[in-house]
């Protein structure tokens, strides 16, 4: 009915014909519709956007058609602009298509060079903008686009630009030995060369070799920070080699140069294969263009994203049959580079990303890969001289390289999860076995891989399974159930099951596990609401505990709660308890947990109601703060996910301080290092430290905002120094505690067994110490570097506002916006701290 009434209010419908029944519309309506002819610009745009995507169409035909159509209809302004914009947009958003898009330009130049002049003009102004803001990935892609067009340039074409980039790289490197921006420039140069050499341009081998000779020293010298980002910290324990990306590429290019630049994998779609007897017509260059004027500022600007050295990680290296190109082959780098850029650029549509990954074989020379979904076992039967590379493995490998990027990947980890999920949805039969082999590789490396990556693996694994009915072949790890509980593999298995339960529920997960695993899911894990220890009479202060719980349940005021607390403390004193407030705090916090056990919002409102009392506990002593954490962790011992969630909220309420959480885990409950094997403890510690570093980054953002003057400047600067000191203190506690475990000098560890540190598990515990230490040292170093770099451009303290307010320039729009945000953040943070 409502529908009808609304219709009368709306705009009149076509022809005033009243629609009575749905059925009336069902016949012949369609045929009456006017034939719709797609405008040419729409067609070209669509063809260009989907170029090379089809396995049935020949891409060379599309290239030729697009070039011819746009050139022949040069006067059609809409078509022309569509083509120019789409070309450049594709280059910076879908890198896999660059050679194909560039081919349309090459072919178009032989038809109509004015058109190409416009493309080059637009591309060069876009490139200039990217250089000016330091968007180096986009620079790399547009330079590659130009590189593919070397054929139609006069003289040396792109090489002078590459030389200029190299000169800047040298400047950067000479200015500082820790420089990374220079390496980024070298990376751009190196990743351009193969595309120039695979282009129809000839006679540039000498140029390329000369450049390679120069880049060698920069590319081959290992950067000091490269150890920081190695996925396998110890060189002698690496299951696979993980060279730095640019040193690897440098070697591969040198090898390729000695093979006369075969570059077999790169497509050359400008040649239409001859039909029948016809001779293949060589591509005509058409009128050659001067290479556009590009200025590279000196010094080169730093982009928004922090640059770290990158290493090449493959989860498919060292298999009995090669399923991905080996490090010795330049194909490995070329595939990886364009796949990784595709993944990171298209984060706004994971379905599109997954499709491009699945279609990876469309974007390279045919027969680079085996047929899609070829089973691993079948690869052995293939003839020896043919590559055995699986497109699925290459695609999945690229996603894993990002998921396991140190110190952090470009996007949230869950993005890479979602890409793998979508890939699996598109081609389950093809992708699932590839993921299986990746999982086995990572599982085998659990003892030696960086601990942060262990946790990323754990998080992805459980999340991925939750999307696919929690099916995994657990039976293959059954033998590992005999390992000690602190063994990295047992830690992983326990952690994975716990994470699965958190996304589902215990009974469901129990049903997915084979018999030997059943004991890992304790009875307690199946209880929605854990028992209240005070309901057992033998628990000390049982009566008071119960009374307290009832009061909290009926939302009693503090005046009713106080007498019970006092009674517990009195009894404790009588029993000679040193700090009587510990048992009272335990009863109070445990009661809150129990009453709030129904759900997160229940416990939050419970905390909210008793906030004042909780806030008063912390400041009394470090043992009191410690007790709060203990009570929460003990109540939710079987469901640690909930426990650490509550701890996290208590931090937000400032009922707990970050330091108290770290001390609880790494000082009070270290248990000779045993606690380090518990995945949820790592999660809690990492989250707590993450909270602190995030806040500090917000303060830094506020401190360095342009246009900030005294007296605010000093206020924010003081906050920054204070909080930075707090952060350093936090890292110090972490460091000291972990060092003692790593060295085996921890008291508890020495007291165990005969004190020789020779217990079979002692070695494992020391390893945990080392692995934790590496992660948190890296985090500390990354934060210090971030602050130092940001503060380098900050207004010095004491700067007063210029007498006359400067008129805000139009270009300053963005930073001002940021500044406002930063300001708000600090205000918020301060309010929360009070």
């Amino acid at each position, binding site marked *: 009915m409502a529908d009808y009434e*609304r219709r009368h*209010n*709306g705009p009149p419908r076509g022809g005033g014909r009243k629609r009575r029944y749905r059925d009336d519309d069902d016949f012949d309506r369609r045929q009456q519709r006017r034939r719709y002819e797609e405008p040419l610009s729409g067609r070209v745009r669509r063809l260009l*956007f989907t170029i090379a995507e089809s396995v049935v169409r020949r891409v060379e035909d599309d290239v030729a058609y697009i070039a011819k159509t746009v050139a022949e209809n040069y006067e059609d302004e809409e078509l022309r602009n569509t083509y120019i914009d*789409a070309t450049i*947009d*594709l280059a*910076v*958003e*879908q890198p896999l298509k660059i050679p194909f898009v560039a081919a349309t330009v090459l072919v178009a130049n032989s038809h109509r060079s004015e058109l190409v002049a416009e493309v080059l003009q637009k591309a060069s102004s876009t490139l200039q903008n990217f250089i000016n803001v330091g*968007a180096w990935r*986009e620079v790399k892609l547009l330079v590659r686009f130009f590189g593919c067009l070397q054929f139609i340039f006069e003289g040396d074409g792109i090489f002078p630009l590459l030389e200029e980039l190299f000169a800047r790289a040298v400047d950067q490197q000479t200015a500082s030995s820790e420089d990374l921006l220079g390496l980024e420039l070298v990376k751009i140069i190196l990743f351009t060369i193969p595309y120039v050499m695979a282009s129809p341009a000839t006679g540039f081998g000498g140029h390329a070799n000369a450049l390679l000779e120069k880049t060698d020293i920069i590319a081959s010298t290992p950067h000091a920070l490269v150890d920081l980002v190695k996925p396998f910290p110890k060189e002698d324990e690496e299951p696979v080699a993980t060279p730095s990306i640019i040193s690897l590429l440098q070697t591969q290019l040198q090898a390729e140069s000695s093979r006369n630049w075969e570059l077999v994998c790169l497509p050359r779609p400008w040649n239409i294969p001859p039909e029948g007897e016809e001779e293949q017509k060589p591509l005509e260059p058409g009128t050659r263009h001067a290479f556009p004027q590009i200025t590279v500022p000196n010094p080169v600007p730093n982009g928004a994203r922090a640059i770290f050295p990158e290493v090449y990680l493959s989860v498919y290296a060292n298999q009995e049959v090669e399923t991905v190109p080996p490090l010795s082959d330049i194909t490995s780098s070329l595939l990886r580079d364009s796949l990784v850029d595709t993944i*990171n*650029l*298209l*984060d*706004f*549509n*994971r*379905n*599109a990303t997954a499709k491009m990954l699945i279609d990876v074989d469309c974007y390279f020379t045919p027969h680079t890969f085996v047929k899609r979904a070829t089973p691993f076992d079948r690869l052995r039967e293939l003839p020896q001289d043919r590559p055995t590379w699986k497109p699925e493995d290459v695609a999945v490998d690229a996603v894993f390289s990002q998921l396991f990027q140190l110190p952090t990947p*470009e*996007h*949230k*980890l*869950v*993005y890479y*999860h*979602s890409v793998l*999920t979508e890939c699996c949805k598109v081609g389950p039969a093809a992708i699932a076995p590839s993921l299986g082999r990746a999982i086995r590789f990572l599982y085998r490396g659990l003892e030696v891989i960086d601990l942060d990556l262990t946790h990323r693996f754990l*998080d992805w694994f459980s*999340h991925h399974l*939750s*999307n696919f*009915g929690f099916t995994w072949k657990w039976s293959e790890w059954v033998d590992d159930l005999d390992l000690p509980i602190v063994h990295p593999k047992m830690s992983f298995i326990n952690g994975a099951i716990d994470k699965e339960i*958190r*996304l*589902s*529920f215990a009974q469901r997960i129990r049903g997915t596990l084979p018999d030997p695993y059943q004991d890992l899911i304790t009875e307690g894990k199946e209880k929605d609401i854990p028992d209240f220890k005070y309901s057992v009479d033998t628990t000390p202060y049982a009566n008071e505990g119960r009374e307290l719980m009832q009061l909290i349940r009926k939302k009693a005021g503090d005046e009713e709660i106080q007498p019970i607390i006092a009674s517990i403390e009195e009894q404790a004193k009588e029993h000679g308890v040193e700090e009587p407030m510990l048992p009272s705090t335990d009863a109070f916090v445990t009661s809150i947990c129990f009453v709030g056990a129904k*759900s*997160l*919002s229940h416990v939050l409102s419970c905390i909210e109601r008793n906030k004042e009392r909780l806030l008063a506990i912390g400041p009394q002593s470090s043992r009191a703060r410690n007790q709060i954490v203990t009570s929460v962790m003990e109540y939710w011992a079987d469901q640690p*996910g*909930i426990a650490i*969630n509550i701890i996290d909220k208590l931090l937000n309420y400032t009922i707990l301080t970050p330091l108290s959480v770290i001390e609880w885990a790494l000082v009070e409950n270290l248990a000779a290092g045993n606690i380090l094997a518990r995945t949820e403890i790592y999660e809690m510690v990492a989250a707590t430290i993450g909270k602190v570093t995030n806040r500090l980054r917000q303060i830094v953002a506020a401190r360095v905002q342009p246009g900030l003057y005294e007296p605010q400047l000093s206020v924010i600067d003081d906050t920054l120094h204070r909080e930075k000191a707090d952060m350093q203190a936090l890292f110090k506690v972490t460091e000291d505690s972990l060092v003692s475990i790593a060295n085996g000098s921890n008291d508890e560890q020495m007291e165990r067994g005969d004190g020789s540190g020779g217990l079979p598990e002692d070695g494992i515990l020391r390893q945990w110490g080392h692995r934790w230490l590496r992660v948190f040292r890296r985090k500390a170093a990354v934060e210090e570097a971030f602050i130092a770099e940001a503060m380098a451009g900050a207004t010095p303290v004491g700067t007063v506002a210029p007498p006359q307010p400067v008129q805000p320039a139009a270009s300053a729009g963005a930073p001002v916006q940021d500044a406002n945000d930063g300001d708000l953040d600090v205000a918020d943070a301060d309010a929360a701290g009070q």
Partner: protein
Amino acid sequence: MSTLTHNTVDRLDRPSAYYISKNKRRKFQDELESQEEAPDPLANATTLYVGNLSFYTTEEQIHELFSKCGEVKRLVMGLDRFNKTPCGFCFVEYYTHQDALDCLKYVGGTKLDERIIRTDLDPGFEEGRQYGRGKSGGQVRDEYREEFDPGRGGYGRAYADDQRRREEEEYGKGK
């Protein structure tokens, strides 16, 4: 992250067709009254509507998944208006707009508790919106659903009532 203003493929972090059509209607009526362009209520939205949850999915499960996109500020479960039991939707509020967008991109359309969930940008939770608007207290879509959905109370309620009535009548006829 791409820097283009117009992307070469669709974006997943846009408001849904449902929101846009609902808004269009509203906008059309508004425009009759005033010609002014209202600011986009979603421009800085930090809240998501989450749909197609199982009635049995808990806050903790939702929290576990959604916190992968950023810290969750608030979580409001959708409840049956009469029974005050979960009825298959919720609101998730983040601290930042970016987290909410990331959630649309990375979590919307994936599974939680083995169901594909739907996420939609929302201008913000208001008291009262946590209740189902269906006749019998749950969500409207659960009134007339003809398929059996064990995670959402079996058949649609109105549909099930209707079935029962018809069966009873048929049974009476046979007597």
